[in-house]
Structure formats: C-alpha cells, structure tokens
C-alpha cells in the first residue's frame, strides 16, 4: 500500500448539500486509491460562474480569489468536485497569474481579512486527479466488477473543460480523459454527435424553455448512440439531465428515459461498491438505475 495523499477539498454548495451522493461516491473511490479529501472552514461559495459573474464580475473574481487564497494557506493542491466551482477557482487563479494589476487590486481587498493570493496554487478537477495523478493503470487494479457489455456516454460539460488556458484539460472539443476512465471499467464508450455540447442549465433562470430545448437535443443525440447511461462530473449538468430529465424528454418522447450516473458512482460500481450506489439512488436518482445495475449482475 502506498502512502495516502491528501488534497484540499473545495466543497461548494450543490454537491455537499443537494447531491451528497456525489461526495460520498467520490470519497469512497478516492479512498481505494489512497486519497483523502480535507475540507477547510475558510472556504465559501466559489461563487458560481453562470449568474453571479453577470451581476458583478469584479465581486465574483474577488470572492473567487479569496477562496484561492484560503486554499494557498493549506499548502496542498486543491480539488473541486463540482465543475462550476472548479471553473471559478481555475479562471480566477489564471486571471491573477496573467494580470498583475488585477492581482494587486484584489490583494488590497484581501489584506482586510489577512489573506494574500499569489497565483501559485494548483487547482484540479476530478479528472486531473484520477487520470493524471492516480493514473489508469492504478485504477485498473481496483476494478473488481468489470462493466463489460455496457455502453456509456460521457457528458463532460462546458465549465469542466473550458477555457483550456485556465482548466489545463486535454482538449476543448474532443476531450478524452472521461472516455479513458469509462474504458478502464471494461465498458464501451458511446459515440455521439456534438460531444461537447452544453446541457442547457445555465440559462434556466433567464429562459427555461430554451434551456430544455437544448437539453432535449442533447439527450436525443445520446439516445441515438444506444448508450445505456450518461456519465457526468458536474452537479448542475446532473440536475439538468437527471433530476429534470422529464421536462426535456417531454419535448421529443415522454416515454423515453436514460439513467445518469456521476463518474464517481460508475467507478464505485466497478470497484464493487454497488450497494452504496443503490442505497443512494432511492433518494437522488429519479430515473431508475435498477435495471442498469441488474445488467451488471453479480453481488455488490
């Protein structure tokens, strides 16, 4: 057994309080890989990047920088499980690195609370940790229940991947890291049109009908690929594609449904922790995952 590695965990709002099964699955999977997540009480809302930015961008980047500064004090790399939080911290960190004037202005504000931001922090998402730090070989060793015969559609979501200069992901249009993680479980990756298109969620506060038109298009294209389930990283994408799926499918086929799993749940299942996923599914999945999990078979 190698020594455990600890990351500073940036929790945000959605995952810990609305979708805690994300955190539970992620922690369980990471533990198998000798990784611990340590929260810091100094963190607050990232703030979210889809509406707060448009209320006051200067306030957004300042609050984000405060969170980055708190992370810097931990001396550890920071991982945000939520794509919105990750995007906010990564973009703010990048802007601080690139813009000395902005950095100076923000540090004047942070001085009032005894903090300072340098821009030296490494901000990661779950794909950086799993694909980059842990590596596919190591994960493969933990796969006790291969998902052979199943096909999954990776939905990356926009804010996890873009902009590349801040996110340090592999590709803005054809990212592959989640594909690789699906393959490691023994499953097949579904091929579908518009791999990187948006779930639609960001415009629900301004135009819900348009948002669900986009969600419907997204699900229809995935349906055509014959995927057994959609795999997501982002809690907002999850809410849109899973919790609100009926509003989208009503636009093209009210009878149709497709399970959506958080990437951490997928890996947990393949690592033999199916029971945990099933017990959380009752509360946090509206689309039944039972039939899908039966296909996997075997005791959990």
């Amino acid at each position, binding site marked *: 057994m190698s020594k455990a590695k600890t990351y500073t965990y940036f929790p945000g709002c959605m995952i810990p309080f609305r979708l805690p099964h994300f955190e539970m699955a992620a922690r369980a999977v990471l533990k198998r890989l000798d990784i611990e997540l340590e929260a810091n009480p*100094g963190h607050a809302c990232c*703030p979210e990047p889809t509406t707060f*930015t448009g209320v006051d961008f200067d306030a957004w980047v300042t609050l984000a920088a405060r969170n980055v500064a708190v992370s810097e004090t931990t001396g550890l790399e920071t991982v945000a499980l939520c794509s919105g939080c990750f995007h906010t911290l990564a973009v703010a960190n990048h802007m601080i690195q690139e*813009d000395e004037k902005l950095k100076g202005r923000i540090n004047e504000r942070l001085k009032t609370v005894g903090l300072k931001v340098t821009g030296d922090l490494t901000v990661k998402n779950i794909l950086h940790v799993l694909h980059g730090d842990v590596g596919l070989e190591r994960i493969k060793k933990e796969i006790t229940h291969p998902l052979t015969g199943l096909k999954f559609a990776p939905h990356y979501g*926009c804010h996890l991947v873009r902009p590349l200069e801040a996110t340090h992901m592999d590709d803005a249009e054809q990212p592959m890291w989640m594909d690789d993680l699906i393959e490691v479980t023994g499953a097949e990756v579904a091929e579908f049109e518009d791999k990187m298109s948006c779930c639609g969620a960001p415009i629900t*506060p301004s135009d819900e009908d348009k948002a669900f038109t986009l969600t419907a298009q997204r699900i229809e294209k995935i349906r055509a690929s014959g995927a057994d389930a959609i795999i997501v990283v982002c809690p907002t994408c999850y809410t849109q594609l899973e919790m609100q799926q009926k509003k989208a499918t009503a636009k093209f086929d009210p009878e149709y449904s497709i399970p959506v799993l958080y990437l951490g749940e997928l890996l947990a299942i393949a690592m033999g922790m199916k029971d945990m996923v099933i017990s959380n599914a009752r509360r946090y999945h509206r689309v039944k995952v039972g039939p899908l999990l039966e296909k996997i078979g075997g005791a959990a």
Partner: protein
Amino acid sequence: MVVLRSTSDLAFRNWVLEQPEGETLLRCYQCGRCTSACPVAAIDNSFNPRLFLQKILLADESLTEEQLVWTCLTCEQCEVRCPEHVKIPHLLILAKVRGLVGGNTPQGALDRARAILAGGRTIMVNESMLKTRDKMGLPDLGQPPVDQIASVLKEIGLAKKLETVESVYGGGSNE
C-alpha cells in the same frame, strides 16, 4: 447594415476595454464564426453573438438593456471556434454587469447573489441536509466566513447596490 445608435459617447466601450480581458474585443473582425458555433443562435436567430460584439465595438449601450444577453450559456463554444480567441462570453458578462443598475438581471440571479452575500452559499442549508451528511458519514463543513465576504467586497459596494436594485427582467421567452 451598421446602424450607429450613439456616436457621442464611448463610455460603454471604454469601460469594457478597461476591464480584465476586455481588450480582447479589439481583435474581433466580425467574421461571424461565433454565431455559427453558438447553440443558442441555432435555435433562436435573434441571438447573434457577432452582432452583440458589433454593438460593444460601436459603444452601443442599448445592448446592456437586452434580455437576450442573459441567454448566453457561457458554454464558450464561440470562443473555442473564434480565430482570434476573443473572450466572447466574458464580453457578454460585462454587458450583463453594466445592465445591473437598470435592472436587466433575472430575478434568480439577484436572489443567488443576495444569498451568497448573506450566507456565503447559493443555497440555504437546513437541519435535514446536515443530518443527511452525518448519516452518510460525511464530515461537518462548518459555517462560511460571511464577515470576510462582506469585508473584501466593501470597496466594490455590491451589498449596497443589491439593496436597491430591482429586476425588471421579464424572463421566459422573447418579448
């Protein structure tokens, strides 16, 4: 056709150019690849990122009163395809910010901003959420430092602005 609405006052354009990453506006030569890449434009032809950029270039502040700026997904598909890497969603964000005083902000966005300032989170955390975390074996996360949020934002004065601003944003479909 280019119709210049306001020739005398470059305030909006100059303000945008002063903001971080705002100067990327000047690299736009109106090729329109943003619009052809945009998933919202694909379902609503009144949403046209190229024309939004044109308005900012021409200092046409009427853009900040348009509800349409808030139907940008911030998906950055336009930016990925832009040959000049103009920060298009960011420039639209600046147009949204500029529209706050006039109330061109969806109610949902104001509510979230107020929640963040008041409680340090976008959502209200209740007892049952905390109990659920405990049952799931997840650690207590404590209370966000709301006083620090107030302190670092003091100079910006957002809390004051949010006290008075009222959303006149209709929301829903196009007008």
